[in-house]
């Protein structure tokens, strides 16, 4: 497996069944700080990868496995591009809760370290004019007298913190008016001409909202210094990202590392109907898209617009 920079292997279990898509197949599950991977032992080209960012909910429920029968299994509910997928993994070693504990706790670690990776607006970041630092964060520079160009009150001075993970900007008068942009979400950092003169412009990535943030720093030498610093930190971060997902592994895992880190043989992928592979994991069925929500007088709630000629009562009576 080739992992991206900053991705670390956390655990690997060799007897896990993908109960939903490959029931009856013994496979290996690999948990890194960013995702869950599963591949079949017999056919390594049968594999899947779930990023923790897509995960909505992880729970344990009873499932029907071909290899283990009725057993406790790990349910992973995910959402990607408005389509929800559900994955069920079963540990084939009876009585071992390692699968559950690892995945759930890594997911929790991921969830609680979002500030490392997500752009945040108006968060509770500043306390008494000091930045609340993340566990692995260090402040490299603090720039005062920065004007934000997105607000009307452009002439009020602001502060910018430059750290090894992100750029934090906040208003002097209102601590809750702030922005935290991790380098991970920065698309570009450059100097542009604006109606307020030369300004530092940070463009955020599409998935974080595609914001364009302008800051004015006077004088222009200071502006150039700051931009240079941010650009170089951005480069350093891109080469060696810090995702903030910290997971303490037990001693025994260290030995397994080398054994698992084997590079999978490259195999030719012939794309013939590969799109069907997703079908097995749909959580909502084969429904491609919802109709628009509308207010329903009968229930007093918002519902999905009914199909023509169908009444709510009629639909409900079918069930009852």
């Amino acid at each position, binding site marked *: 497996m080739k992992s991206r920079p900053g991705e670390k292997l956390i655990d690997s279990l060799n007897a896990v069944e993908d109960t*939903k898509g490959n029931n009856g197949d013994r496979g290996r599950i690999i948990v890194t700080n960013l995702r869950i991977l599963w591949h079949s032992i017999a056919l390594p080209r049968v594999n899947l990868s779930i990023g923790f960012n897509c995960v909505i909910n992880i729970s344990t429920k009873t499932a029907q496995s071909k290899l283990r029968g009725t057993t406790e299994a790990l349910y992973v509910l995910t959402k990607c591009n408005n389509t929800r997928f559900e994955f069920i993994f079963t540990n084939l070693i009876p009585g071992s809760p390692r699968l559950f504990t690892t995945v759930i706790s890594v997911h929790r670690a991921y969830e609680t370290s979002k500030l490392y990776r997500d752009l945040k*607006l108006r968060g509770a970041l500043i306390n008494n004019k000091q930045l609340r630092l993340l566990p692995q964060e260090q402040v490299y520079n603090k720039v005062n007298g920065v004007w934000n160009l997105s607000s009307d009150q452009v002439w009020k001075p602001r502060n910018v913190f430059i750290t090894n993970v992100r750029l934090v900007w906040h208003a002097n008068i209102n601590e809750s008016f702030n922005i935290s942009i991790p380098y991970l979400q920065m698309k570009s950092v450059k100097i542009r001409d604006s109606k307020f003169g030369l300004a530092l412009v940070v463009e955020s990535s599409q998935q974080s909202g595609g914001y364009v943030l302008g800051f004015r720093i006077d004088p222009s030498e200071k502006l150039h210094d700051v931009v240079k610093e941010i650009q170089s930190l951005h480069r350093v971060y891109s080469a060696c990202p810090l995702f903030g997902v910290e997971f303490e592994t037990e001693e025994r895992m260290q030995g397994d590392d080398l054994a698992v880190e084997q590079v999978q043989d490259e195999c030719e992928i012939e794309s013939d109907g590969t799109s069907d592979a997703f079908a097995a994991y749909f959580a909502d069925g084969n429904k491609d898209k919802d109709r628009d929500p509308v207010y329903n007088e009968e229930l007093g709630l918002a519902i999905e617009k009914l199909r023509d000629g169908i009444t709510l009562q009629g639909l409900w009576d*079918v069930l*009852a």
Partner: protein
Amino acid sequence: MSLFKARDWWSTTVGEAEEFDHGCLCVANIDNSNDELDKIIIGSYHGILRIFNPKPTKTEDGGWSGYKPEDVLLESALPNPILQIEAGKFVSGSDNLHLAVLHPRNLAVYSVSVTSGAVEHGRHFQLKKAYEHKLQRTAFNFCYGPFGGVSGRDFLCVQSMDGTVSIFEQESYSFSRFLPGALLPGPIRYIPKSDSFVTVSSSWQLECYKYQVLAVATDTKTKEESQNMKSGKRVTWDWCFNIGEQALDLEVVNYPTAPPSIIILGERNIFCLTDTGKLRYMKKCEYDPSCFLPYASLVEGSINYLVATHTTSSLMVYQDIMLKWAAKLDNVPVEVRIGKFQDLQGIVVTLSDTGRLECLYLGTDPALFIPPVPEARELNYGEMDREMAQLQKRMKQSSNKPVIMPNAKQEDDLQILVQVNPGLDDNSVATGLEYEDPDPVPSISARIQLKSRLTIENITVSMHADWPLACNCGSYEVSSVDPSNPTENFVSFFLKGKVLPPTLTASVSANYTSATGAPRIATAKVKLPLKLVVKPVLPVKNAEFKVTLDTNKPPANLNDIFPDLLGENAHGPGAALGFQFYGMGSIVTVLASKTSQRYRLQCDKFEALWLLVKDLAGRLSSHFNRTKNDNFSVYFTGQLPLQEYFDLIENHFEHRLNAERCKEMLSQRATQFRAIQRRLLTRFKDKTPAPLANLDTLMEGTYRQILHLADTIEENNQSQEMAACALASGTHLFCYIIKLWTNMSQDEFKVLTSSITPVVSNNLDQGWEERVDAAVTHLLRTTLAKASKDQTLNPQPLTMPEDTTKVKKHIALMCDKLGKGARLVEGLPQNSAVNMAPSPRKEKKTKISATSKTVMENGVIDNSDDTETLIGSQFGQHKNKHLKDQEIMSAMNGLSDLSELGLPAANIPLEDEISEKQRKKHIESMVPDLDDMEVHTGPMALED
């Protein structure tokens, strides 16, 4: 449960490892914006207040854009945990909505203000504290409303953990009151119509308190109202209603189209009451509700409400008691609200305990989805075939095993090593002997070592030696053995009973619990030397029973063969040695022929020969078979000692019969005794006693008889034990001789010894005779049967036979068949190695009287077999005269002389009379006798 699912409109995960519960979610237009759209306000137990404004946009593919960073309006870390948040008109002189936040020790009211920016993410929101009340008691929850009928203003009522309510008229504190009988606080609400509070107390009833009653119930002594009051007037409720369960939540609704109602969500039921405490309706829940929310009255006179459930995580929509809709949720909400966002009203907002915040609408497409079966991959049939074959092989292997035995070798945690000392003990430990011997009885020590791979604790080691051998220590315990530290113990074995020992082996077993918790036993066998039970004496010339062994090597000097058992024969020529068993008179004499390759063993008792025969054969073969090429072997060419063997069987059986007879008699006497007792008792009970009529004498006589019988049984048991030992020794010898005679393989010998078993046990329901008879009959009908037609199996019940005729007959028949070359294991060629046909001794032939018919009892055995007569007849009438006399005697004396049945009188050597000089001569004179024997037996064999 539900066919329908709640559809996700906008959702996000709030907080980082924060917890949420009831009261943490509020939906209101908190920033008082002109579009009157709701905002979502969330306070966590970690003290972080967040305000969201969901604004998803439609994407090209028809989905919703979901959460965007700019949807966060405000995030503020408050210094204390947030218990509850509500929006209301809490600031005097303002109609705007303000936010009341309840912390454990204070109640704060905030205003949320907006400063618009150039772009959406440029707007900034500010949280300003309007006022704050410090609380003296730890707060539980609060409610608000226009207490006392004020208009346009909301007052606050905080309930603390001890059930005290404190009223705050906006910025000013009003009063505090104790609610009566408070143990734990419950949900509390204000009813505007009747100006009263309702709460569900810990006595599981709904209680209503008038605001006026609370307000006027001041303590006359203290005019000043303060929060930290210690006592107060007891207030009483206006009305109460028993719901009989804990309430999860409580709501007061007042819709224009429905009567004012109080709705209570219990743990199992939903109650709806009028504002005066009359039950309107009640709904029993078939699930565990987590939270609920009345939201509207859409039909005249009825109330619509939502209920979320735990286990099935679904959202129910009720109209009064009728379920109108149900939808499946992804999470179990702790709080549910309804809000208007963008242009869409009626959006359901849910918050889970882990902080999953979702804005939902109800899906109307039934979820009939069944996941498609994954595309079948190309199956590797070759691989599957191989696996199948492998599995079948394993199944076959395991089914071949008759019993599923745990594989002991894998888990051989404990090893027992036993080493017998080469010499006898210097100081004999033999005690408690049942016999007397002029010479000191020796004992021999054995070293028992326990070695283990793992640390094992609590090991019980027990020693067992077959009677009459015994050990000085029955068992001992070892507290723990670890790999580095093996234990060592010494035990001694010696001859205890006055019986001939049938075997010279003892076993040592260790009982322990393995590391996996399974009980395990390790055993080791100990071979004891012959010198433990015999002592060297001068040889005896004449003896009744003789066994001659042939070899294929010139005879060895017996002094070389028995270097450790020479005694006073040490300086003799080595042609004859005598051995005497400790405690018994029998002397076994071993003679080596000078000219031929023969050895003769003779004794007065047939069974006493066994240990010497075995030992001699073993010693000879180790003496001659020094290298691999020395093909020394021992044969038996003489006549099978059938008669001698049968005498032993007869003797043993006689004891069994006696035991039976004694038992019968004992039960008879016991019955008689009880009958006499009964009669005596009735006489003694009688008020006018009748004469005893000698019943007492009769009773005493019977009593003596019973005692005597018990003694007799005890004696018989002892002598039966001796007879059993003798029979065991005899069986060993008999089987061994057959083995030498027919040159049997080890497999065949196994079959033979398991059929004619040398294990003679006394205390089973099944005696030795019937067991051996059954086994031999089985062999005769199966392996030894002539043709397949004879191979019928019809097992007979194992009951004690009338006499020993049958078993003797069958053994004789088997010997005959073996003599003719039959094999005991199927698939071997016919045996041509039988050394010599068994021939009855000349003098006994005259006594043959039984006819061939006696053998044919079971009909299966071929009638035309002539030789049966010859062999079978031998046991018929002949009896050792000595035994015969005894039998007659015992028959005459009834049971009193049973002990004499034991062993024939020993032929005590006349050692004392023979002087030293004579002794040597005596031995020498015996030797030529052996050479005569050769000549003597030769023609005898030819005669037949």
